């Protein structure tokens, strides 16, 4: 339904998108021009001199009841026409957006020819051009903009030249109709609700009631009804509402006036209408140096931050679970490979680098030797874990920190923040090298054999290149730093090469790895393999309310460091020390095939009355092909002291899953597999 020509374009777009336009209902009796001809040419039913006075249907629109209107739109002259439809769109024409202009102290003035308020006089340096000044045709907007732009430049003291505006052919438009409320056969107070402000549910009847109650100033009407209080600041309904108020008081719109707008103004950005931040360019997609290989080998991708990470690598015909089972068992039986390039990497240099690490990590760094790696936990001031990773000592004053993929930028910011505001005297520099190194993690019993085929200058002997050591050398002809660290619990090497050579080394690994059934795996298998070992993922098994002791990671907290560390005091607060805190434990379902949904809540007695007393939720849950049963980790109140006890998980489908509390380490509790 429309009072003007512009809404026809929406109907045409609707039709062009392959949808059916039941009809265009035009309140004007005599509009005739390009748009009406075009509607007919498109075969769209055009009903002129009518309005939609009622929508029928419950829960969704099913039908529109039409009313024949008199020439001014004041009265219903005939009824009986109805249209079956599922959507009704209505247009009362354009309203200049005077909010910003209002903020300068300019009071809007009504213009009948515009059928809207335009900015009035202002004492500030302000020129208004285009639609806000009542120009709705493109050609007028362009010439107005060019003229006033030149004027503004001249007033600012810059020489200007005449600017040619682009030539525009615009169809002739029929005059719009000033119509703010479609009349009904019944008075507004008795008619079905006629919503004016869609955000605050203000109706025409409500506005009329306000004026009858004596709220005659438009500012009072606004406060009586809440009209214009929504987040759209009245952009949709205010003009209609003010016109209804004026009419009910037998006044003109200029007499009633408009409310004025205060900051803040919520704009519709140009980007939302005309910008290029859409479709493929909506958000950056970050790729690793091996991305093209992953694409070629059929990887399904997962979004991790802005990164596209391989999620899993299905073979033709495989379901996701089948692919995961294959990737998981291949890694534990022989060897798997993960593109770990996306993990955050921060180069840390300076004579106080070691001291700085000791202050931001919970554990000790004073004695970590050159060539060694160590796992670290980072807490916020409140003592809650927010990131973790392995940091390696490259030189006496030189460390390479790794962070979670999603936490990389936040951790770098955190380090800079503490350095700049708390400890500016420490001599240390942080630089991101995330993108500079391509990182490939090979894991499994055959990892050493494979690496040995590609390097001749790194001594891979188990007694000289131990677990949590790193070495420098050449891999597939490329200088590399190789870190013997493991997120799978297997014999594992993380090979880092300058990213320009990443794809080459990756391909060489596959060339030599074929005989070992080298299997690429993605983030999902990575999650399963680490869960089999009870390794946490910060942000999945932690949620900002969990301190290292809750996680059972007391070994990663060094209480007696000479200087304090971030979070030390926080994790000693009364609430952090109280008994019965939620603690991270392993959970084994009694039915080994049943995989608990992540987020499921544990209770002691599934038959207790609601609301039940909840003990904690599942944070990680998978089917482990290596173990032949499901595995889960989750929070349980006092969980560390409840090993072997059973809890129940009532699920939303009505079923209840019983599980036994156990250690988080499901596989190889002594860590023999990674120490070979």
């Amino acid at each position, binding site marked *: 339904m429309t009072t003007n020509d512009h809404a026809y374009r929406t109907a045409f777009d609707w039709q062009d998108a392959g949808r059916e336009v039941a009809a265009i209902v035009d309140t004007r009796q005599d509009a005739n021009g390009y748009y009406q001809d075009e509607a007919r040419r498109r075969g769209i039913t055009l009903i002129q001199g009518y309005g939609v006075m009622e929508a029928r249907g419950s829960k969704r629109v099913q039908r529109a009841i039409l009313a024949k209107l008199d020439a001014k739109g004041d009265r219903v002259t005939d009824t009986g026409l109805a249209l079956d439809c599922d959507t009704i769109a209505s247009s009362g024409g354009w309203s200049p957006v005077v909010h910003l202009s209002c903020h300068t102290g300019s009071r809007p003035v009504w213009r009948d020819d515009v059928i809207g308020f335009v900015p009035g006089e202002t004492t500030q340096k302000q020129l208004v051009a285009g639609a806000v000044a009542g120009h709705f045709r493109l050609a007028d907007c362009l010439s107005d903009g060019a003229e006033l732009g030149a004027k503004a430049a001249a007033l600012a003291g810059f020489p200007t030249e005449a600017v040619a505006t682009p030539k525009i052919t615009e169809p002739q438009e029929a005059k719009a109709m000033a119509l703010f409320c479609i009349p009904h056969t019944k008075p507004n107070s008795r008619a079905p609700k006629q919503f004016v402000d869609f955000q605050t549910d203000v109706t025409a009847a409500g506005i009329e009631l306000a004026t009858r109650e004596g709220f005659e100033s438009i500012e009072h009407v606004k406060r009586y009804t809440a009209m214009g209080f929504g987040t759209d600041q009245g952009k949709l309904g205010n003009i209609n509402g003010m016109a209804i108020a004026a009419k009910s008081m037998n006044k003109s719109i200029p007499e009633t006036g408009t409310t004025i707008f205060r900051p803040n103004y919520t704009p519709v950005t140009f980007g939302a209408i005309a910008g*290029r*931040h859409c479709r*493929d*360019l909506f*958000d*950056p*997609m*970050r*790729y*690793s*140096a091996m991305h*093209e290989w992953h694409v070629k080998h059929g990887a399904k991708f997962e979004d991790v931050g802005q*990164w596209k990470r391989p999620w899993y690598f299905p073979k033709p015909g495989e379901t996701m679970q089948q692919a995961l089972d294959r990737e998981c068992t291949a890694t534990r039986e022989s060897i798997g490979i993960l593109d770990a390039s*996306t993990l955050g990497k921060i*180069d840390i*240099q*300076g*004579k106080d680098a070691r001291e700085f690490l000791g202050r931001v990590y919970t554990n000790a760094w004073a004695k970590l030797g*050159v*060539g060694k790696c160590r796992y670290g936990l980072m807490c916020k001031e409140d003592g809650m874990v927010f990131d973790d990773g392995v940091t390696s000592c*490259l*030189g*006496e*004053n*030189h460390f390479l920190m790794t962070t979670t993929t999603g936490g990389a930028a936040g951790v770098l910011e955190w380090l800079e923040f503490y350095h700049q505001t708390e400890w500016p005297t420490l*001599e240390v*520099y942080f*630089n*991101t*090298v*995330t*993108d*500079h*190194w*391509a990182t490939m993690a090979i894991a499994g019993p055959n990892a050493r054999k494979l690496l040995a085929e590609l390097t001749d*200058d790194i001594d891979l002997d188990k007694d000289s290149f131990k677990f949590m050591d790193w*070495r*420098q050398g*050449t891999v*597939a*002809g*490329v*200088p590399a*730093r190789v870190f013997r660290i493991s997120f799978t619990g297997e014999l594992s090497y993380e090979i880092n*090469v*300058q*990213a*320009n*050579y*990443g*794809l*080459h080394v990756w391909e060489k690994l596959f060339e030599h790895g074929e005989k070992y059934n080298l299997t690429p795996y993605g983030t999902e298998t990575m999650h399963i393999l680490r869960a089999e070992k009870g390794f946490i993922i910060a942000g999945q098994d932690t949620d900002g309310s969990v301190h290292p002791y809750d996680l059972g990671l007391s070994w990663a907290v060094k209480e007696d460091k000479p200087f304090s560390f971030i979070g030390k005091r926080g994790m000693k607060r009364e609430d952090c020390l109280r008994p019965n805190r939620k603690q991270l434990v392993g959970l084994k379902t009694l039915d080994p095939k049943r995989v608990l949904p992540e987020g499921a809540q544990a209770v002691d007695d599934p038959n207790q009355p609601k609301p039940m007393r909840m003990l904690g939720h599942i944070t990680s849950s998978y089917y482990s092909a290596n173990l032949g049963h499901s595995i889960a980790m989750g929070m349980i109140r006092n969980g560390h002291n409840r090993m072997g006890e059973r809890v129940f998980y009532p699920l939303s489908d009505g079923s209840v899953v019983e599980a036994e509390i156990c250690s988080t380490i499901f596989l190889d509790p002594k860590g023999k597999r990674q120490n070979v």
Partner: protein
Amino acid sequence: MSDLNSLTDQATLVATMDQNPTQDVPARSPLHQQSQVSLASLNVEPGITLWEEALKTHLVIRGDAADDAFQKGVKAATGLAVPTQLSSAQNEHWTLSWISPDEWLLVGPGTEAFTMELALHEQLSGHYSVVNASGGQTLVRLSGEKARAVLMKSCPYDVHDRNFPVGKVVTTVFAKSQTTLRRLDENDWELVVRRSFADYVWRWLLDASHEFGLRIAAPSASQKQFSTASEKRSSASAVAG
């Protein structure tokens, strides 16, 4: 080279490493696929020419600009005076750009990363750092009469002549990523782009340039995707000498 890479030296304060291979190994720049794409012939004079300056050396230098020894050390190693805020210094091989109050980016021939890293370590002392970032970023060149118009659409920073004269360097927001933007000439701009964001920035540039007519040039002629060890050694010694 192997002694330089040695870790057994107890005096190792900062690990350095020649990260380029001495054998023939294919190197892939962040845009090696995209920049090979040639667009269909254009019937208009291109307003924009775009290419990647691939496989350069990128070294990030941190230090105290107020420290004379730092100034002198950088000059001795690079031949360039440490540039002040929002500017850069340049000679035949190297460009040194101001990034932030204690940070500079040194860009030069791709084969020279290690030689230059060692030269800087030799000349600098005290509180400073040198980090090789060559694999982590690349240069994109944007040239042509309409280059500024493309940047106006892409950056909130004012790239008008009055605010952005030739020689200026600014690290700023680019679309939804970031770039270090340097104006080389009236119609010639250079963007430093992070590797993982390079594809996004490149596609953004293709889209933003489309209305002006776009030509994608071959990666800069001085760069090769494949370089041999012997070439590298000879040029390394030239600089060292």
